[in-house]
């Protein structure tokens, strides 16, 4: 397949002579800001020159890649280093519209999440979004560049997404209500969960394991592993994504040294983890079947939380700020 669009222009004449009205293809003008496909991603670029070659418009683009502090894009920057500017056909470009920027971001996100899933297995579940992103390109390609493939095609093709198979965790409605109350207490009423909690997250996980083993008659290894996974996620995720802004100071005060948050926080914060769970699990490329089983087990755990809602969750939060964890503050 073509290595560079430049070389191919010579042969293009044969394939696209009759059916390519040149007037219709000059959709980008010099100096215009555009979005350009390069590899699996879309980058901002500027059209430096536009030339009609062999009845086909070619654009000399300069990529405007801003470093957003994302390590992943840096990988791609390395790849780009040799081709900051290049001649491309219209099939590689898109208008710089809001809609297209969203496509760009979608692709970015997908690339980020999907970096490590090399197995072709998931290719069968072709993500709709990327297909959409390509769909209108496809149209352009058919009219403008018949019989010619842009070199980055393979890159885009391979782009399959684990976002597509995000595990769905249906949170029982009473627990949803709990989450809304939690939001209300913390963000609207300026209250905090008084720490340390009893039962804490570790206690709850242990209780569940006991409950499960009693019910099933055996200690199931897989449940144990999943519970460890929950604990590990909780400890890592708590400071990074499970705290409301107003809770950060409390975290600083209470979680000292290498104390594990799962020994301090309780059901209120554990439940928030389940809102984030699909996002976290997306980083593991879990097979469909296993994912379904895992999903069932997580839901079973949630039902357990629900059953014990009145004992696991606080019904009122602590209104006196500044009493973080010390218990010296007076309740209202």
């Amino acid at each position, binding site marked *: 397949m073509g290595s560079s669009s430049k070389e191919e222009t010579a042969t293009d004449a044969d394939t696209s002579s009759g059916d390519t009205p040149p007037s219709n293809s000059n959709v980008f003008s010099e100096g215009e800001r555009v979005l350009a496909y390069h590899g699996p991603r879309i980058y901002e670029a500027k059209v430096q020159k536009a030339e009609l070659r062999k009845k086909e418009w070619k654009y000399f683009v300069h990529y405007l890649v801003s470093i957003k502090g994302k*390590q992943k894009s840096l990988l791609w920057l390395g790849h780009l280093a040799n081709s900051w500017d290049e001649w491309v056909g219209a099939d590689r470009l898109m208008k710089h519209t809001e809609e297209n920027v969203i496509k760009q971001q979608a692709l970015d996100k997908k690339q980020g999440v999907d970096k490590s899933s090399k*197995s072709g297995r998931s290719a069968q579940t072709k993500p709709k979004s990327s297909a959409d992103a390509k769909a209108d390109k496809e149209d352009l390609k058919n009219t403008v560049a018949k019989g010619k493939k842009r070199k980055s095609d393979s890159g885009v093709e391979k782009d399959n997404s684990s976002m597509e198979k995000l595990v769905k965790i249906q949170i029982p409605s009473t627990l949803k209500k709990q989450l809304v109350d939690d939001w209300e207490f913390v963000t609207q009423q300026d209250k905090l969960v008084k720490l340390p909690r009893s039962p804490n997250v570790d206690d709850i996980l242990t209780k569940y394991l006991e409950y499960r083993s009693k019910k099933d008659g055996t200690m199931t*290894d897989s449940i144990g592993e999943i519970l460890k996974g929950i604990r590990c996620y909780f400890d890592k995720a708590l400071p990074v994504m499970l705290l409301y802004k107003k809770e950060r100071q409390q975290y600083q005060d209470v979680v000292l040294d290498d104390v594990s948050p799962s020994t301090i926080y309780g059901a209120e914060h554990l439940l928030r983890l389940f*809102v984030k769970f699909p996002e976290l699990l997306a980083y*593991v490329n879990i097979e469909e*079947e296993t994912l379904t089983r895992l999903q069932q087990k997580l839901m079973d755990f949630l039902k357990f939380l629900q059953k014990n809602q009145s004992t696991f969750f606080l019904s009122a939060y602590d209104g006196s700020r500044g009493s973080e964890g010390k218990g010296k503050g007076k309740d209202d």
Partner: protein
Amino acid sequence: MEGGGGREKEEEQDGVSVHSPCKAPPSSASSLPKEQQQVELELRLLEALEIYPPVKLRGMHRHFVLYGLMEFLRRSLDRQFSPDEVLQLLDRFYNLEVLKPDDEEMDILSHEEDFCLPQSYFVKEES
């Protein structure tokens, strides 16, 4: 791969190495199916590792990766595998201690954001 060279030697003395699947010890006829089983097991494990890269066994996702491996092996060999069993098997191929957690994980954890309850939770719906 990384490390684990010493262990491999041990295995070879037992006669159950992947490297000599065809050579059964002549004395014991009963060890042949056992050896085949072993080869089968290791093959499945390698298949599983394509989906669940060992490097992920070092980071925050390790338990779910291990769970994935357990499930994969359970399905393909039709018996239960405990987490320890899987880890012991892996130990033959990898020195997990040496593997570094991948930077993808650093990415999640370095990006601090406030918790935000999705809009859908505020909509009243019973289901």
